[in-house]
């Protein structure tokens, strides 16, 4: 059926992959996958972590060699496999998620890197590089000072530099790996404009992502992978995020509204007119015992900054924070933790957990006092405490001494939650708790959150995925540009209402 939709009377594909098989040490990463890209189209490649998306990019760009039997037809030629050089020479470019830029070098050097600096040893002509860079930026309708080091620019401009670099080599096919992950809405809009122009100029663009809501609008087709196999190819028109999720996971999620009325419960947190100019302004809200307050909004809306100031890591300029009625002023997050506030970071890899260290140590790091007796840490107490939480939250681990990095995203997040629960908090702030967690494993996280709320914990759930807060929070705040612009009660509104407000 999948084949049928893609075999309509369409122009000859620019890229056509047939029978790709790829395995690593006997574990199959791609099973008999076929993939087509038409000239000038915008194509989405969707799949969960580990579904084979990045393996596919690496095969097309020559980083990996697929097993024999694969046919790569590209631009009228057939290749048994690619190499990085042939792929680049043939006009295949990738904009990696980490951008792979050089912050200390100038914008011009970054853009002209492949064409000028990447070549064999010779003298550099800075003027030539500057010309290339200015021209490439002009094509995107952007002007930057090409002589400044790249580190002077913010992430959105850096992404533009990465795109400009990809276009220098007369690209015909551009892969964009999770391109909107770190962009705000207006930056995303600008990116989409650029992609539209590229597409109009005949360059094919493939978006690779597990979250495609923003880019579906301008896409032509959608290819979904699951567990290394092709699920199907679909027209993008009329596709919605929930349907993509079903295709990616193979499961149907029937969401039920969790929202309850907890207005009779005592107030745990009361924030009044909290401001930190430039980050957030005039924020007022309350959270009650057993309540889950959702905060949504786009990247850059000031959500994380607000959370950090409740956690004592960012000082507000004015306004008050009251915990159980008492005004508090934290000089560090240690004060906040002592007062019963816990904060699960949005960046699990570099801030949420100490990845190389053991599961047990990560779980107890915030509550060392509990495993201390007579001034010394007790291994037995640590083991007990950890074992207790592992059972309590249903975490699947090998040994307590294994590095956290060996766990799946979902289990890592449970360890991070357990770490904070071990501090016995009154208020738990969860900042994007499902980032990097497979769609299938997210339900488990939300079950835990619901259980915690039922046991009386006050929870702030921050997410830029509107359905998450709609279905799992009791009330929803919408932040934009540092202010609360809307307040929703999921029982009295629809998901569309909130989405319309957020993506307006």
């Amino acid at each position, binding site marked *: 059926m999948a084949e049928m939709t893609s075999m309509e009377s369409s122009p000859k594909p620019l890229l056509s992959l047939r029978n790709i098989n790829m395995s690593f040490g006997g574990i199959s990463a791609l099973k008999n996958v076929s993939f087509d890209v038409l000239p000038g189209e915008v194509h989405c490649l969707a799949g969960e972590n580990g579904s084979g998306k990045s393996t596919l990019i690496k095969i097309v760009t020559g*980083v990996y060699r697929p097993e024999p039997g694969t046919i790569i037809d590209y631009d009228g030629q057939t290749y048994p496999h690619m190499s*990085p*050089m042939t792929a*680049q020479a043939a006009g295949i470019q990738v904009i*990696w998620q*980490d*951008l*792979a*830029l*050089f*912050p*200390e*070098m100038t914008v011009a*050097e970054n853009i002209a*890197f*492949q064409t*000028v*600096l*990447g*070549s*064999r*040893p*010779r*003298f*550099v002509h800075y003027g030539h590089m500057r010309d290339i860079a200015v021209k490439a930026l002009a094509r995107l309708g952007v002007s930057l000072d090409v*002589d*400044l*080091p790249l*580190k*002077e*620019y*913010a*992430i*959105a*401009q850096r992404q533009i530099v990465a795109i400009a670099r990809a276009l220098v080599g007369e690209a015909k096919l551009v892969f964009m790996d999770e391109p909107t992950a770190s962009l*705000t809405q207006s930056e995303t809009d600008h990116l989409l404009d650029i992609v539209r122009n590229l597409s109009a100029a005949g360059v094919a663009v493939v978006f690779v992502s597990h979250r495609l809501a923003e880019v579906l609008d301008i896409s032509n087709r959608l290819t979904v992978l699951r567990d290394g196999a092709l699920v199907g190819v679909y027209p993008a028109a009329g596709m919605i995020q929930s349907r993509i999720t079903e295709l990616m996971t193979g499961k149907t999620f029937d969401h039920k509204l969790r929202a309850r009325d907890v207005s009779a419960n005592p107030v745990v947190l009361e924030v009044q007119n909290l401001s930190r100019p430039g980050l957030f302004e005039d924020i007022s809200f309350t959270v009650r015992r057993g309540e889950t307050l959702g905060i949504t909004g786009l990247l*850059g809306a000031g959500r994380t900054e607000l959370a950090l100031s409740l956690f004592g890591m960012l000082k507000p300029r004015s306004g008050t924070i009251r915990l159980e009625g008492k005004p508090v002023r934290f000089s560090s997050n240690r004060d906040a933790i002592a007062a019963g506030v816990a904060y699960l970071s949005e960046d699990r890899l570099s801030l949420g957990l100490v990845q190389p260290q053991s599961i047990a140590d990560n779980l107890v790091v915030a509550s060392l006092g509990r495993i201390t007796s007579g001034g010394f840490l007790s291994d037995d107490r640590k083991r007990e405490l950890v074992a207790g939480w592992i059972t309590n939250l249903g975490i699947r681990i090998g040994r307590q001494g294994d590095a956290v990095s060996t766990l799946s995203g979902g289990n890592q997040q449970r360890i991070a939650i357990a770490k904070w629960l071990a501090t016995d908090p009154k208020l738990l702030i969860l900042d994007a708790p499902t980032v990097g967690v497979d769609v299938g494993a997210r339900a488990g996280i939300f079950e835990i959150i619901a259980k915690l709320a039922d046991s009386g914990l006050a929870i702030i759930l921050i997410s830029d995925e509107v359905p998450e807060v709609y279905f799992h929070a009791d009330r929803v705040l919408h932040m934009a540009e540092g202010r609360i612009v809307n307040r929703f009660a999921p029982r009295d509104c629809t998901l569309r209402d909130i989405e319309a407000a957020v993506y307006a």
Partner: protein
Amino acid sequence: MRSIIQSHATEFALLVVIAVISVVLSLSTDSFLTPGNAFDLLNSSSVNIIFAVGLLVVLIAGGIDISFAVAASVAQYVTAILLGWIGGGGWISGLLIAGGVGVLLGAFNAFLIHKFRIISIVATIATFNIYFGLLMFFTRGVSIYNLPDWLTERVILYEREMADGSWIEITLPVLVMTICVIATWIFITRTTTGRQLYAFGDNPDGARRFGVNIAAMQFIAFGWLGLMAGIGGLVQAHYAQEVVPNALYGRELDVLAAVVLGGARLGGGKGTVLGCVLGVLLISITQNGLNLAGVSPFAFKMIIGAIILAAITLSNSNLEKRLPFMRQAKGRG
């Protein structure tokens, strides 16, 4: 102008500090601000500057090398012995041998680092001990004083008596140093390979994905430092008119301090030849000035240590906050 100061903040700051120190010293001593003294300074700093520009290249490529100073001693010794065998030789053969030995020793570091993925500080601490231990073992710590005449004879390329009676001299070490500095500058700013070194130091993974040859980068960086170490070693033998196997022992950390003072970053991707030379000069000028001011020679190092400590502390404690014009565009633009 603002952008020049901004993008060369370290060099600018060093120049200011050097100027201030020079003014203070020239007011407190008569002999500091004389051409004769300036050229003396240049002569005596030559060896360190040669080492420094070599080390700069390794730092830019994201590595560190502890072994180069003892490698220079090895190069010195081997050259002295080989020159004895071939019956004298000359500057060309001397530089070729010393440079060649240096490159070999540097390449051995690169081999360990690339082939076995040993991080550079571990690998070069190991080779530091190997090179130095073997040198002392085979030479039994015996110095060579019987060097060929051409090596010990002072070569004065230009001399002139100034009005105040002091002599200015440009000697061979200064020439060799100038060539090394210019060659390094051209190499790292004007060739594709040099820029690839910056890219590799800045973002190794990114550089790899864009086709930069990682093995070549390691061998070139450590090879260049090896070359500079060999040349510097021979020049030092010329300057000191003797080859003492442990004469350069400990120099590595002094040079490292000077290079980092000059703005190079441990971790790679950053550093300029100008900053590096100014870093060495700042230290020499301070030392020279203190000497002329009659400060006890035993106090030099203490004061220099304090200056470096202060410089590192200041340069890391958010200068931008204190100097608004240097503030960078941070965060979302």
